[in-house]
């Protein structure tokens, strides 16, 4: 009996350490296969703009910039939306709150490739034929000072702005679920005291609930950020896939994940190694964001009712 227990315990331990091994393995493999690129270009790979398979010159900057830009747009839209959506769900009466939060959860269950199709066949034509002509030709936003710098020359429906909209819809359920938990963890006593002092709902939210749960909110934002950084399919469909630096919100470009999905199957030699190097950059970016997210969520774990 002692023996079976030891065996059982060891098996469980081995299985659990698999997750650490996988994590290490991913880092080591990506590092090894991108070694050629790092030794050839050094760290300047990070800020070079060329991507020229014919001349074997590669640089990651357009990809990194595109990834950061789409993530930033997605967060700018999704943070306020998920914040107030979570607020609505917490304050709504039970019969309404339950189906609503299920609906938001189901939003996370839709496969990303379907978001991509919807973007390509619905959102792109909509933006191209109605929204962007209205903004550019009717409101003449590009003629304002800094307008071309912000929006770029011309529009096609594809580009960073479209990708950012789709990403924001995709990360909304994740962020809103965490924010919901954060709102619920505020002790009712605190909330009621604020109301008792005559605070309005907005003042209670801003001065009491937000202060109490700021770390949890940060954790939720980082989780959404990590999702947006690495999302592949939805972005691939609508980003336009041009290896160019972002020229404005409406311009086409690429992100790390989209470049990987687009070029990986045909690449070999140094290009393959450069793609692995891009993968390593993406891995490091999302790893550090996940670590930050877990740190902030860990601080509030007990209060949110998790162990």
């Amino acid at each position: 009996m002692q023996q079976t227990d030891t065996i059982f315990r060891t098996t469980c331990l081995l299985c659990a350490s698999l997750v650490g091994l996988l994590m290490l393995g991913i880092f080591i493999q990506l590092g090894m296969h991108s070694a050629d690129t790092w030794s050839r270009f050094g760290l300047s790979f990070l800020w070079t703009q060329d991507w020229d398979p014919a001349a074997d010159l590669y640089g990651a900057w357009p990809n990194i910039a595109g990834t950061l830009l789409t993530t930033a747009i997605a967060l700018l839209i999704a943070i306020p939306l998920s914040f107030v959506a979570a607020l609505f769900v917490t304050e709504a009466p039970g019969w309404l709150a339950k189906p609503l939060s299920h609906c938001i959860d189901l939003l996370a269950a839709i496969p990303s490739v379907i978001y991509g199709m919807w973007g390509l066949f619905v959102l792109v034509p909509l933006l191209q034929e109605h929204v962007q002509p209205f903004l550019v030709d009717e409101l003449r936003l590009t003629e304002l000072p800094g307008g071309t710098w912000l929006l770029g020359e011309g529009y096609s429906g594809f580009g960073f702005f479209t990708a950012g909209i789709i990403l924001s819809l995709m990360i909304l359920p994740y962020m809103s679920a965490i924010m919901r938990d954060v709102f619920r963890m505020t002790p009712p006593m605190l909330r009621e005291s604020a109301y008792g002092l005559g605070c309005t709902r907005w003042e209670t939210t801003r001065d009491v609930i937000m202060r109490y749960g700021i770390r949890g909110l940060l954790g939720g934002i980082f989780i959404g950020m990590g999702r947006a950084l690495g999302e592949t399919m939805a972005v691939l469909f609508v980003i336009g896939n041009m290896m160019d630096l972002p020229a404005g919100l409406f311009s086409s470009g690429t992100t790390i994940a989209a470049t990987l999905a687009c070029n990986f199957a045909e690449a070999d030699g140094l290009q393959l190694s450069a793609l692995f190097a891009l993968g390593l950059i993406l891995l490091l970016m999302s790893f550090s964001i996940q670590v930050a997210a877990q740190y902030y969520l860990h601080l509030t774990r007990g209060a949110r009712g998790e162990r």
Partner: protein
Amino acid sequence: MTPTSLNTQAPFRPLFWRKTQDVLLGLFSLISIIIAVGGMGWILWTVLSHGAHVIDWQFLTAPSKPYGEIGAGIANALLGTLAITGAATLISVPPAIAAGIYLAEFGKQSRLANVLRFSANVMMGLPSIIVGLFVYVIIVIPTGNFSGFAGTVALAVIMFPVMMRTTEDMLAMVPDTLRESALALGMSRCRATLSIVARAARNGLVTGVLLSLARVSGETAPLLFTAMFADTWPTGYFTKPTANLPVLISEYTMNSPFEEMHAAGWGAALVIAGLILALNIATRCIFRDRKH
């Protein structure tokens, strides 16, 4: 500090403005809920309206064919997806449950367990395309060809940390008195865990497996350069590129100029979305009492 200086420092907030702010917040949160729920409705409606007329018996039972040949369907991709995700579940769930048992029953708050728990949490948030790259390196390069099995491994790697954390959470909800009674009856730790604690948490575990299965069956990015795509039945699961629905969808809609293929892509999207949503809703309804 005198009372007068306190008064001058208090921010001036007219009641009207405070109430307006409050109403604006209410309106804004209503709008955001409409965007979230409306967005979901819009996407599902688009898939339904484009895909519904494509689906018939032949579409579901014939294999996919190159453009131009008549009588094409998605049956090979459907079978391929079932094989790839089913095998991924089979190879990742048992070790993941064992790993979860370690965290919940043995490791608890030890330093090693904390590190592993942290790794699992971080790994759950890593981009799935990175896992695709990793599996490309460890399976596709050594064996020399793309295969359905490589896709299976990629999905299994994605499922593993999710199932591990779910198992831990579910086991942690089982009251300690149950463990103590089992041990007091003379059961070994192994038997007490497997036939008492795990049985008490059974519903939660099944929910976890089904939800993570639903989550990975729509994953496309990790299959792009592991399973790839083929117009054949999935007979070469271990040696050849294997057809699967997500990659079929992206091939047909993004890389093809033909209307017929777009339509087939919408049909396939409806099938996969229907399967995933049905799995999600059924799981949540049947096992609702156990969660939270």
